[in-house]
């Protein structure tokens, strides 16, 4: 009946039309048949009238079908894109055209992850009023969705028997991670990255373009580097020195264990794309590692213009695996690829066993230049069973009081203690911990907050080095 069609974004179809008797139509025919028999046996008007109605409708429709020699309708389906960002809309436009006037309905069959907004998945068409209809679909979740088929019902009795055309599309829609909830201006993003780099690295004079210092002119210095204004002021030749451009290697680790399943993983992947957009335009390099228990996937961010799109597509079908992130596997993976001495940004959960995290961080701290650990808070991301219970569901005020005053406060206390514990475990001369308390933030803002706390690091190192020198 229906066949697979090679789909392109704007395609016209001429499909065979066929006759459909619905389940309801069949039931009504049988019921009216029983009433007809009753009416005939009792010679009663009551049963005869409604017993006859559906057979006569059916006969009229059959005669109509016999008269109908050719009912070709042409269908054009337009989908704006095969890939969309999560939480955005996908319009699907269906245009139906025929040589004769018709009215009927269009039904769109889609996978579970696409939700209709404004109009449901069934719409009406009338060739005299509008040639087509647009469905607006929302893709709230990252993943692979599908527009399965379009069913067009024309010329018949609504819901009973009609002519139908089925167009099998099987069009895959890739829903890539959503953008961060808080959008930042580009200059601010760049500033945060610069702050991060300057915090991590110590500037060295070299052949860059950024100003480093002024010094006296030595024989052999390039004339174009002379600072004429300073030379005039001090009455001697002074040249400018420049900073050696720092080429840092960033590794972004996204914990993809089952504990992260849901909003946390979505945020982490969205954050990965956000950080990538900033680093891709700089001269630093970035690799994204998706780490589950046994599953490790590394995506290296290239320099080409399509690198971000490729990254988003690579991230769209990440599924959680394993109960907790395996730090040993992560460390081995990094060491095998000689990625040590990189800057590690970890997006992980705060539900892991503290000892497990402690051991993991011990192994990583030794080999990395700096570590920034972002722990995603469970109450903040609304993944606790408690957060699904709304205030309206409490009939008893005592219960509501119990929830508000006792359960929520004790939970807050427990989590505060847990975050403190994590902070003690992770914080060190080259590593910092930060809790991400809500979905409605930007990872770069969190990073900036972390950098403010990180300010004392250089002084810390200096003190440590002085101590070594004294020894």
């Amino acid at each position, binding site marked *: 009946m229906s066949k697979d069609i090679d789909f392109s974004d704007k395609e016209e179809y001429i499909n065979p039309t066929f006759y459909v008797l619905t389940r309801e*139509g069949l*039931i*009504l*025919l049988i*019921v009216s*048949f029983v*009433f*007809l028999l*009753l009416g*005939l046996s009792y010679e*009663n*008007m*009551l*049963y*005869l*009238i*409604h017993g*006859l*109605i*559906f*057979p*006569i*409708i*059916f*006969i*009229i429709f*059959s005669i109509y079908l016999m008269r109908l020699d050719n009912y070709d309708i042409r269908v054009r389906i*337009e989908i704006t894109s095969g890939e969309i960002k999560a*939480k955005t*809309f996908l319009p699907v436009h269906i245009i139906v055209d025929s040589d004769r006037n018709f*009215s009927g*309905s269009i*039904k769109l069959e889609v996978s*579970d992850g696409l*939700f*209709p*907004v*404004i*109009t*449901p*998945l*069934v*719409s*009406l068409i*009338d060739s005299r*009023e*509008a040639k087509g*209809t*647009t469905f*607006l679909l*929302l893709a*709230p*979740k990252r993943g692979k969705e599908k527009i399965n088929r379009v069913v067009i019902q024309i010329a018949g*009795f*609504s*819901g009973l028997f009609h002519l139908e055309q089925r167009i099998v599309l099987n069009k895959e829609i890739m829903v890539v991670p959503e953008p961060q909830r808080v959008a930042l201006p580009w200059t601010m993003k760049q500033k945060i990255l610069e702050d991060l780099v300057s915090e991590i690295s110590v500037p060295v004079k070299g052949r860059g373009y950024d100003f480093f210092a002024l010094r006296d002119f030595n024989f052999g210095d390039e004339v174009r580097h002379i600072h004429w204004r300073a030379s005039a002021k001090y009455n001697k030749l002074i040249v400018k020195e420049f900073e050696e451009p720092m080429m840092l290697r960033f590794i972004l680790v996204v914990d993809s264990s089952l504990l992260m399943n*849901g*909003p946390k993983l*979505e945020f982490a992947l969205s954050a990965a794309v956000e950080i990538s957009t900033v680093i891709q335009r700089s001269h630093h390099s970035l690799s994204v590692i998706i780490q589950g228990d046994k599953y490790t996937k590394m995506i290296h961010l290239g320099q080409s213009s399509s690198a971000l799109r490729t990254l988003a597509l690579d991230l769209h079908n990440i599924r959680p695996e394993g109960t907790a992130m395996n730090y040993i596997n992560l460390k081995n993976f990094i060491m095998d690829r000689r990625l040590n001495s990189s800057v590690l940004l970890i997006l992980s959960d705060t539900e892991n066993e503290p000892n497990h995290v402690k051991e993991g961080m011990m192994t990583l701290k030794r080999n990395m230049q700096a570590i920034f650990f972002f722990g995603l808070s469970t109450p903040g991301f609304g993944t606790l069973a408690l957060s699904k219970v709304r205030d309206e569901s409490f009939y008893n005020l005592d219960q509501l009081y119990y929830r508000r005053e006792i359960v929520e406060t004790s939970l807050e206390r427990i989590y505060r203690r847990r975050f403190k514990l994590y902070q003690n475990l992770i914080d060190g001369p080259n590593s910092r911990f930060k809790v991400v308390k809500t*979905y409605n933030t930007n990872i770069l803002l969190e990073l900036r907050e972390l950098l403010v706390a990180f300010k004392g690091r250089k002084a810390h190192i200096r003190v440590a080095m002085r101590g070594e020198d004294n020894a």
Partner: protein
Amino acid sequence: MREDPIVFEDWKVGSAKYVNFSIFKRADAIFSIIFAFNMFLIGLIYQNGTMLFTWLFASVIIIFLEVITDQKNRTILNRLTIIIILGFLAVLSLQTIIPLLRYTWINVILSLNGILLAFKFILLPIVNDANDISGEVLEPRNEMTENRLMDQVHRLEGTEFEILSSKKFNLIYLKYLKINLIYYSIPIVVIVILFTLKIINPNFILFQAIIALIGLFYSVIILTIIITWLYYKYMQRKVRLEDEEDEEEEIIPVFPKIKIDTT
């Protein structure tokens, strides 16, 4: 729909507000009430206790089922059950006054009831369609999401992609409804003409001939449906069996290699 925090943090489940259900609800309930009242009237005229009791009782049930309870979430089978109950209740109660049914004016009331029941039948697929059209959609939970949605709709307005406005949709829906009602009214007109002729002349031979013709046509169609369905099932099974055979051919048995440690 799934209860997922990612899906439902900004959106809630609602329904499209295109079709006004209350018209169908009222019409359906009014048909049932008039039906019950007519039957009650017949009982009152013939002073038949069984009919009086049955239709008073039925009225209460009808009012409960069709007026008080929510109609929107009712399936076509639920609605059909009400009609069947009404029909069979009428069969049973009319048993007591069958000898009196020879009077033509009673037949007029019963014909009216027949038409009412037929209208209730017609409403079944129409309500079912309306149910589909005002199906589940996601509605914005907050103002920010609503603004985002409206922005998208406004952006689409300038392009070929145009979401049907409520006004235009209603226009199409009324046309659609009108066409359906015209189709449905044809058999009612045919039946009314037939029965008028039958009432005027009880030995009207054409009536018997038409009934016989309908019976013949009907049984042929039902037989065709059954045979087509059986053939379709048979073909489906055959295709499935062929697929399974193909799959079996592709499977290459692999046995685990056993390594014996001799050290």
